[in-house]
C-alpha cells in the first residue's frame, strides 16, 4: 500500500496538483466562507439552498466520473448506472429510516412508518443491520458492487458488447424500478424512503449538517478523482483504452477484456453507489423513479457534454448540464426537454470530444494563429 500512495503522489504532474488545489480552494474554502462568514444581507452571501444545490452537483459529478471510467475509458456504455446510484441511496436511506426510531408518525420503534401502514408485523430480514451506520456504509459499496459484479460477469463472459450491453443494462434498471415500485419488496414502494430525521446523530434540518454533507461530497469527489486518475494513467488505463478501441486485439495480446471490464464496471458501480449515498441525505428522499432508464441515459449525456475519456470533462459536464437544468426548469420548463434533446444530438454529431475537446481545439487554433502572425511579423521585419 505504501507503494500505492507513493504512486498516487507521483502519478500526476504539476498541472494536476494546481488544478486540484484550485478546486479544493473553491469548494472547500470559498463556498463555506461565502455561506457562513459573509453576512446574510451581503450580495456575496451564498444562501443555504445553494450549498445543498452545489452538494447535489458534486454527487452528480461523482456519478459522471464513475460513468466516464466505464464508458469513456473502457467503451462500455452502461445505461443502468442510475440503478447503482439508487441502490447506494437506498442503502443509506434504510439506515436513516432506522435512525428515525420511534419518532415516526406511528411511533413504532421497530418498524418504519410505511411497514406499519402496510400492517407488517416484523422487520424483513434484509433490513437487519441497517440500524448500524458502519453496516449501511459498507452496503453502500457492497450492494451496487455485488450487483455489478454478477451482472458484469454474466454479460462480459458471454461477450455481450456495444448496444446489446447497453440494452440489457437498461432492462436491468427497468426491472429494478418495477421491483422497487412493489410494496411487497419492503422498500416503501411508490413513495420510497423519506422523512429522515438525522444521519450519524446529526440533525438533517440543521444548516451545519447540510454544510457537512456538502463538504463530504466535495472531499469524496476529490478522492475519487485521484483514484480514477491513478487508474487511467496506469498501464491498466492504457489496456482499458485498448479494450475500448479494439477489444479482440487485446485478447490476442493475452489480456482478458472480461476481467478488465468486470473490474472497471464493478469499481464504477461502487463509486456510483457512494454518489447515491451522498445524494440522498441532501435531497431527503429516495424513490423508485431514480431507477428509471431516462435517468441513466442522462448520465451519459453529462459525460458526453463534458468530454468523455477525460476525467475533468466528466465533472465539468455534470456541472454544466445540471446547472442548465436547474436554471431552465425554473425559467422556461417546457424548453428544458428541447434543450436536453438537442444536447444529445449536438454532442454526438458535432462535438464528439465535448467541451474539453472544444477547449483544446480553440486553444490549438489560437496557438496556430499566433504562430502564423508571428511568422508573418518576422517576415515583415
Amino acid at each position, binding site marked *: 500500500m505504501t507503494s500505492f500512495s507513493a504512486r498516487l503522489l507521483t502519478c500526476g504532474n504539476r498541472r494536476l496538483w494546481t488544478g486540484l488545489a484550485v478546486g479544493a480552494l473553491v469548494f472547500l474554502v470559498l463556498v463555506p466562507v461565502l455561506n457562513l462568514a459573509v453576512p446574510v444581507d451581503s450580495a456575496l452571501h451564498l444562501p443555504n439552498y445553494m450549498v445543498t444545490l452545489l452538494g447535489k452537483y458534486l454527487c452528480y459529478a461523482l456519478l459522471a466520473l464513475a460513468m466516464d471510467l466505464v464508458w469513456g475509458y473502457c467503451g462500455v*456504455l452502461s445505461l443502468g448506472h442510475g440503478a447503482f446510484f439508487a441502490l447506494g441511496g437506498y442503502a443509506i436511506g434504510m439506515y436513516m429510516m432506522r435512525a428515525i426510531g420511534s419518532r415516526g408518525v406511528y411511533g413504532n420503534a421497530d418498524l418504519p412508518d410505511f411497514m406499519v401502514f402496510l400492517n407488517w408485523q416484523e422487520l424483513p430480514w434484509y433490513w437487519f443491520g441497517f440500524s448500524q451506520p458502519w453496516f449501511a456504509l459498507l452496503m453502500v459499496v457492497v450492494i451496487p458492487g455485488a450487483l455489478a459484479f454478477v*451482472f458484469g460477469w*454474466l*454479460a462480459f*463472459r*458471454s*461477450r*455481450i458488447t*456495444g*448496444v*446489446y450491453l*447497453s*440494452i*440489457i443494462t*437498461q*432492462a*436491468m434498471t*427497468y*426491472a429494478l424500478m*418495477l*421491483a422497487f*415500485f*412493489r410494496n411487497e419488496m419492503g422498500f416503501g414502494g411508490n413513495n420510497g424512503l423519506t422523512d429522515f430525521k438525522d444521519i450519524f446523530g446529526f440533525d438533517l434540518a440543521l444548516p451545519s449538517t447540510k454544510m457537512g454533507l456538502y463538504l463530504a461530497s466535495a472531499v469524496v469527489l476529490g478522492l475519487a478523482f485521484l483514484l480514477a486518475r491513478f487508474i487511467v494513467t496506469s498501464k491498466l488505463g492504457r489496456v482499458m483504452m485498448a479494450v475500448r478501441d479494439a477489444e*479482440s486485439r487485446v485478447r490476442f495480446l493475452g489480456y482478458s477484456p472480461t476481467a478488465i471490464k468486470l473490474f472497471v464496471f464493478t469499481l464504477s458501480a461502487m463509486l456510483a453507489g457512494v454518489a447515491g449515498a451522498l445524494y440522498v441525505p441532501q435531497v431527503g428522499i429516495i424513490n423508485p423513479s431514480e431507477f428509471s*432508464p*431516462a435517468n441513466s*441515459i442522462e448520465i*451519459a*449525456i453529462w459525460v*458526453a457534454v463534458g468530454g468523455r475519456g477525460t476525467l475533468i470533462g466528466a465533472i465539468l459536464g455534470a456541472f454544466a448540464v445540471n446547472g442548465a437544468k436547474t436554471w431552465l426548469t425554473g425559467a422556461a420548463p*417546457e424548453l428544458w*426537454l*428541447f434543450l*436536453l*434533446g*438537442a*444536447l*444529445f*444530438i449536438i*454532442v*454526438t*454529431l458535432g462535438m*464528439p470530444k465535448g467541451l474539453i475537446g472544444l477547449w483544446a481545439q480553440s486553444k490549438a487554433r489560437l496557438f496556430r494563429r499566433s504562430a502564423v502572425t508571428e511568422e508573418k511579423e518576422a517576415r515583415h521585419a
Partner: protein
Amino acid sequence: MLKLVLALVALLVCSPAYADDFAGAVRALNADSFSDKLTAADTLAALGDGRAAAVFEAMADGRLYATADGTILIEQSGSYRDAVSGATVAASDAAAITVNNRLRGALRAAAGQLGLLNSDPVIRQQAAESMLATPNPDAADTVRKALAAETVPAIKALLSQAVARLDLADSDPAHRLSAIAQLAASSDPQVRGLLQPLADGDSDPQVKAAAQKAVSSIENRLGLIGIGVNIFQGISLGSVLLLAAIGLAVTFGVMGVINMAHGEMIMLGAYSTFVVQEAVRALLPPDYFGLYLVIAVPVAFVVTFAVGVLLERTVIRFLYGRPLETMLATWGISLMLQQLVRSLFGASNREVANPAWMTGGIELIGGFTLTYNRVVIILFCLAVLLALAAVLRWSRFGLFMRAVTQNRPMASAMGIPTGRIDAATFGLGSGIAGIAGVALSQIGNVSPNLGQGYIVDSFMVVVFGGVGSLWGTLVGALSLGLVNKLLEPYAGAMLGKILVLVAIILFIQKRPRGLFALKGRSVEG
C-alpha cells in the same frame, strides 16, 4: 296484427276460469295490512298467470292504484289501464297501493318467476338467467311448468339447469343425484359453488361421491378455460409487443440502427389517429365515424414515414458505424418529440374512441369474452407482418434494401442509390411504428409518454428473437407475451414482468444473438 296474435296466445294459455281467479286475486292485493297483501301476492303468483308479472312490477314500483270500487289499475307514464282487462281508463279517484321493502322484494321475485311464462323470449331468457343465479325453492313449480312449455333451446337449457339446481336442495337423494348428473357438464364457477356443499358433507354417501366427482370435473374444465383465457391474453399481449417491435426489427435488424425514438414514432402514430378522429368527427356525418380508424392507418404511416426519413437524413446518417452515439442521439430526438407533442396537445391523455365495430365481443363459455378490439389487433398485427415480409421478399425496394445491407459498396457500384434506400428503410421502420400506434391507441391511453412504455419491451423482443429475423421477432413477441400472461396468475403482473426481464437477461448470456441468430463469419465482428 301482432296484438291479435298475442291475444290468441293468451287465450290458449289461460282458461276462462283461470281468468276469474286472476281477477279475484288481483283485487285481493288491495288489502289493509302488508301481511295480507303478501298472502294475496302469493295466491296470485301461485296461479302462474303471465299477466301477473306486470301487476307485480307495477306494485313494487308504486304504480299500482285502486279505485274506490276496488278496481285495480296500472299506471304507466301518466295513463291508467285496468290490471285485469288491460283497458285504458280515466282514474281521478284512484289511490296508490302502498308497499314496504319486504313486500317489494317478494313482489320482484314473483315477477321474476312469472317472467318465465312471458310470451316475449327475451324476457323469458332474462328471467331464466336470474332464476339460475338466485334459485328460489318456492318457484320450483313455476320453473318446471316453464320448462315443460319452453320451446327455445337456449332458454330450455337454462331452465333445466335451474331445475337441477333446485333439485340439489331436494330432500330425496335420487333427485339430488340426477341433478348432480345434469350439472356436472357445466363450466360455471357458480355451479361449482352450488355443488361444493354437497361434496363437502351430504348426508347420503352416494350423493356426496357424485358431487365430488362433478366438482372436480367442473374444476378441470374451469382450469382448461383459465389456460385458454391466459393463452388468448398472452397472444393478445404478444401481438401488441409484436406491433411495437416489427418496426424496430427493420431499423435495428436490417440497418443496425438503435432507434431510441422508436417509441415516439408509435406515439406519433397514436396522435395521428387522434387528429384523424377529430377531423372525421367534425367533417363527416356521425354514421361514418367508424371509418376514422381505416383512414388513420395510412395517415399515421405517412406522417411517421416522413418523420423517419427526415431524421435519417438530418441526424442518423451521420452516425452510421457509431451505434452507441446513434443510441444517444435518437434518445435526444425522443425527448424532443415528446416535448413537442406535449406542447401541441397538452400533457394529459387524449381520448381515442373505439369505433362501434370494434366494441363488444364474442362471448364464449365460462363467462369469458373475446373482445373485438383485441381480436382485430391480433389480425391486424399478422397482416402488417405478412405485408412487411412480402415487401422485403418480393418488392424491388426490398431487394435493394437487402443488397445495401449486405454489401454497401457493391450495391452502390451497381447504381443503387444507397442514401435513398437508407432513408426509405428507416422511414419504413418508423412508418410501421406509426401503424402500431394506431392499433395501440385502441387499447391504451394516448399521451406524450405512450412510447416510453414500449421501448424496453420492444428491444427485448428483438434481442430475444434474434436481430435481423422477422420470424424471430414473431416468435419472440408471442413467447414473451405468453410467458408474461401465464406467469401472471402465479406471480402477479409486476413480478411476472420482472421475472421475464431477468429471464431474458440470463437468456442473452447463453444466446447473445437471440433465438434465431444469423451464423457466420460476417457477424463475428
